[in-house]
């Protein structure tokens, strides 16, 4: 059938409206539901604003103050602290790297056992999964605060915090990858007389390795970002200088540190992207990229 645009006139629209009324006006139940949802959402937002004392005057004054602060941030300067900042930034990246590597290794057994097709016992799996959920449910900074109390100030507390929170995350990502594998290669290994362990090694591991690597790279990127703030609670890295410079209102050095963080994060992201394309060569479509 040919489509003739000039044939669409008021009468044609009227006919279409009669033929398919739902397209033109959705049923009242749906539109009422949408209005109700919108009303609840805005109502809750209004309640929040009231609860948090967000009066227009306060916001206006705050914006003014923020503007002044932003003006004072230019030009970013490091002063005499340039090399101290650089060393602290290197420490941040080092913490993220070592934490990610250790977490990536620790998460392998947890992730494998947490997958339905490896460990069919639901109770053991349930316990494993819930415990890694607990590790994930608590923010990294809370772990850092606890570890600073336990092992003292310094990067070790930060590294431990990264390890603990990301072992949980990686274990979950690994289990999901393992559950998405094709069962047939395991059957093949088992049919040739391989035990369950060999089944995992030669049947599942080759399938999930690219996904696991991709997850680890993503976690490394995310850790580089989060490690920059661990120093706020004294767990090593650039965060200490950053919070100190903000508290003492040293805005030029603050903006220098922020720019330093931005540059480092871009470099790490670029590096990680290069490794990803090299090692995995696009086998895993970027399902994980950008989740931060």
């Amino acid at each position, binding site marked *: 059938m040919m489509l003739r645009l000039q044939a669409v006139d008021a009468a044609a629209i009227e006919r279409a409206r009669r033929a398919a009324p739902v397209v033109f006006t959705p049923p009242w139940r749906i539109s009422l539901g949408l209005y109700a949802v919108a009303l609840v959402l805005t109502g809750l937002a209004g309640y929040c604003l009231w609860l948090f004392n967000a009066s227009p005057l*306060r916001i206006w004054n705050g914006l003014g103050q923020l503007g002044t602060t932003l003006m004072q941030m230019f030009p970013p300067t490091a002063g005499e602290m340039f090399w101290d900042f650089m060393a602290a930034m290197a420490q941040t990246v080092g913490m993220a790297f070592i934490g990610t590597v250790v977490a990536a290794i620790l998460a392998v057994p947890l992730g494998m056992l947490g997958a339905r097709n490896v460990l069919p016992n639901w109770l053991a799996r349930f316990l494993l999964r819930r415990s890694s*959920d607990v590790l994930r449910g608590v923010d990294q900074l*809370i772990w850092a605060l606890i570890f600073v109390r336990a*092992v003292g100030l310094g990067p070790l507390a930060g590294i431990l915090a990264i390890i603990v929170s990301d072992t949980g995350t990686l274990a979950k990502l690994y289990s999901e990858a393992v559950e998405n594998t094709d069962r047939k290669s395991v059957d093949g290994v088992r049919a040739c007389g391989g035990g369950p362990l060999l089944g995992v090694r030669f049947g599942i591991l080759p399938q999930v390795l690219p996904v696991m690597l991709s997850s680890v790279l993503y976690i490394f990127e995310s850790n580089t970002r989060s490690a920059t703030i661990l120093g*706020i609670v004294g767990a090593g890295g650039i965060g200490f200088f*950053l919070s100190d410079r903000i508290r003492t209102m040293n805005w030029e050095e603050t903006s220098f540190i922020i720019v330093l963080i931005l540059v480092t994060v871009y470099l790490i992201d670029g590096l990680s992207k290069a490794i990803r394309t090299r090692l995995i060569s696009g086998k895993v479509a970027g399902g994980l990229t950008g989740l*931060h």
Partner: protein
Amino acid sequence: MGASQALTSKVPMFERQFQQLQSQRRRSTLLYGGIFALALLLSAWVGEFNPIKVIEGLPRVGEYLMKTLPKLGIHTLWHDLGEWFWGLPKWLKLLWETVLIAYLGTLLGTLGALALSFDAADNLKRHAASYWISRRVLEVSRTVPELVFALIFVFAFGLGPLAGVLAIAIHSMGGNGKLFAEAVENIDMKPVDGLRAAGASWLQTVRFAVLPQVLPNFTSVTLWRFEINVRAASVVGFVGAGGIGQEFYTAVSRLYYEDISAMLILLVCTVFIIDMVCEKVRHRMIGKESLT
């Protein structure tokens, strides 16, 4: 016969080629393995990480965590639980505030992301300038950690949840904006062409050709962002930006051991409930099949 002979004469060539490939591969494995080991050593050095310190530190972590657990007697269980959770009304109020900070932050951030992401998408860009600016704004606001914004906003807007809300909003705007723009870049362009041909303005095109295609994805991303923001809102209190973080920080630094574990348990439960509710909503709204 002749063919098989020709094949046999080629065997040494295959062998040679195989060996060449193998040694090439071995060399690159050695090279990258060396780089990896070097990076690891370097990280351990700048991160002041050594296994002896870790082995010494781990028992202290265990001791610390044990100290936070209260003594519960079987006969006095009810009473002991009451002692343990003595601050329950106050803590629940703070947790409610935490969830509200995450809610308002997510809402404002998502609105910001909606405003910028269509401009930041490759396939819908209006002017080179608006494309460039929106991309840079999204990048910066996603790369700078929430807590850094929180520190600055506490200075500008004063102590309290408002600073936390704004910090989370800015960071969510960056994170969601990137994912939104990616979703927009993956749409089917035919409806857009159709509307453009019919003379629709840019805004009308976005509303009627783009939004219906990306709405399920946007909703899913936003719900997931809310889950993340609940975790983030639990730590903005460390720098005085509201929520349960402030109370937790005080408990840790004043060594109120049992309060630490009580608040952690409440926090983990809250995070679990929020995650579960979000999962339910997601499944209801977009159906199982469109969840990738």
